């Protein structure tokens, strides 16, 4: 039984196989465009962000105050119609210091690393975090559990987007 073939195929190519023209390639470049309707709950969330406020929904049954706000509670599966403002402060649940762009290219020597974090927002239920980025802090000073506050764009520059918050800075 030991001599049975278990692995076959999977022919590795080298860069030279390609550059020498030994292997033919066909290429295409897709240019896709989308416009996403923001939905019932997130539309209100974005409208409030434009006003410089963060709003959540609360479920009548499990009492969770949820971010981002939802049309329905995914646990209780009932509609959420109670809207509540929460604060624009929170604590860092976890963070990263990222030296890679979204397409895996490396950041340049003069660029600062990206500082993504999960931030548990004050006023929402414990553990209700959103993903955002940190700023106005040196990477080595970031700690899990530190308090942070949203830094908002100037009112006239806000567009109803999660990026109306520029970043969260230490409080």
């Amino acid at each position, binding site marked *: *039984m*030991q001599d*049975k*073939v*278990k*692995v*076959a*195929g*999977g*022919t*590795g*190519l080298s860069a030279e*196989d390609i550059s020498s023209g030994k*292997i033919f390639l066909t290429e*295409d470049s*897709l240019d896709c465009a*989308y416009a*996403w309707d*923001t*939905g019932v709950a*997130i539309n209100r*969330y*974005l409208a409030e962000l434009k006003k410089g406020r963060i709003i959540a929904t609360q479920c009548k049954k499990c009492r969770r105050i*949820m*971010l*981002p706000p939802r049309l329905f509670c*995914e646990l209780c599966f009932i509609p959420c119609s109670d809207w509540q403002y929460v604060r624009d402060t929170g604590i860092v*649940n*976890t*963070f*990263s*210091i*990222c*030296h*890679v*762009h*979204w*397409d*895996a*290219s490396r950041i340049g020597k003069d660029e600062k690393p*990206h500082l*993504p*974090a*999960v931030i548990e927002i004050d006023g929402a239920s414990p*553990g*209700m*975090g*959103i*993903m*955002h*980025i940190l700023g106005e802090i040196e*990477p080595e000073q970031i700690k*899990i559990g530190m308090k942070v506050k949203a830094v908002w764009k100037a009112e006239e520059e806000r567009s109803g*987007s*999660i*990026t109306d918050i520029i970043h969260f800075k230490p409080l």
Partner: protein
Amino acid sequence: MRKVAIVGAGMTKFVRRALETPKELSYQASKVALDSCGLTLDDVDCIAHGTAPDAFDGLHQNGEYMVDGCGGWNKPTMRVYVGGGTGIHAVVHGWHHVASGLFDTCLVVCEEKMSSALPHAQAFFLTIFDSITERSLEPNLLWIFALEMNRYMERYGYSKEDMALAAVKIKKNGLKHPASQFSEEVTVQDVLDSEMMAYPVSRLDVSPVSDGGAAVLLASERVARRLTDKPVWIEGVGWSLDTAYWATRDLYYPRYTDTAARMAYDMAGITEPDKEIHIAEPYDPFGYKALHHLEGLQLSPRGKTVELLRDGHFDIDGNLPICPSGGLLGVGNPIAAAGTMKVCELFWQLRGEADQRQVPGNPRRGVAQSWGDLMQVSSVVVTGI
């Protein structure tokens, strides 16, 4: 439900960039699996196949494109897709086909070709994030792993060295796998010295980008006993999806793996998994992730996993060998195919056919698990002889 056995397995080499197309890789893996149990396509009743994001291939509905390579011509064929979870989810899917009594044999085939996507397959993961509340922050896939790894380390006081040790031990196993895309051993220092990509994730903490295919042949008890005197039974299956609001669940513990594992253990009649399981193939795209998943699989007490790792508990000759194949870190990570490779490994290990990688002591029961989507799905298969 009827008993279902794995009766054949096969795979291609995992390579950074393969000459073969997805269809050809599917054929190569399928053919080896069929030959391994002396069957031909005429003996196959149905096909369960899997491939992860269509975006890698730039072929919409890639499953249909693959179908000929999977032997699906004019047969009942179904594709499942749960991101990185696909490779084991497809086996669960195939199990349904046979356990239900509808079919006596099912060929399960998973394939991934990541090298076609330019400039890098990672770019296409941007589109797994929420299009409205997250994507405008220009996230990259490494963010979520780095955020999860950091949270996990912080929760239990694990260090980057600890996480590197997991990667080193798993990669070492892979050097003995004939399909591995690696040939050199790495040390903990190599991992720590490798490029910092997204703290705490360094380059060698991460599994590679790969092309490859893997397949298993499933059969009902009646057929399995005719084909082989060493069927490997699928004793339990489980799967679970957690919420896509990923930032609202504490990332230190994989709840989705817990739920999926308990479902599979219940079906298999396992009450003490850490004693009753002899080999584990937890999903290991990163070193930390293997440990994280071991805790979710109830194979290691929460917060004690590094201690056990250091003590050699998870080594090939330890009490509970993990990733004897070498895993995604040591063999390669062609997404959907990587999960199926883990099931191939259990098949070979439990039959005593794993050659140089053979776990000593005649292991009789194993578990394989894969993970994917937006860090939210686990698929689990328990096998035994």
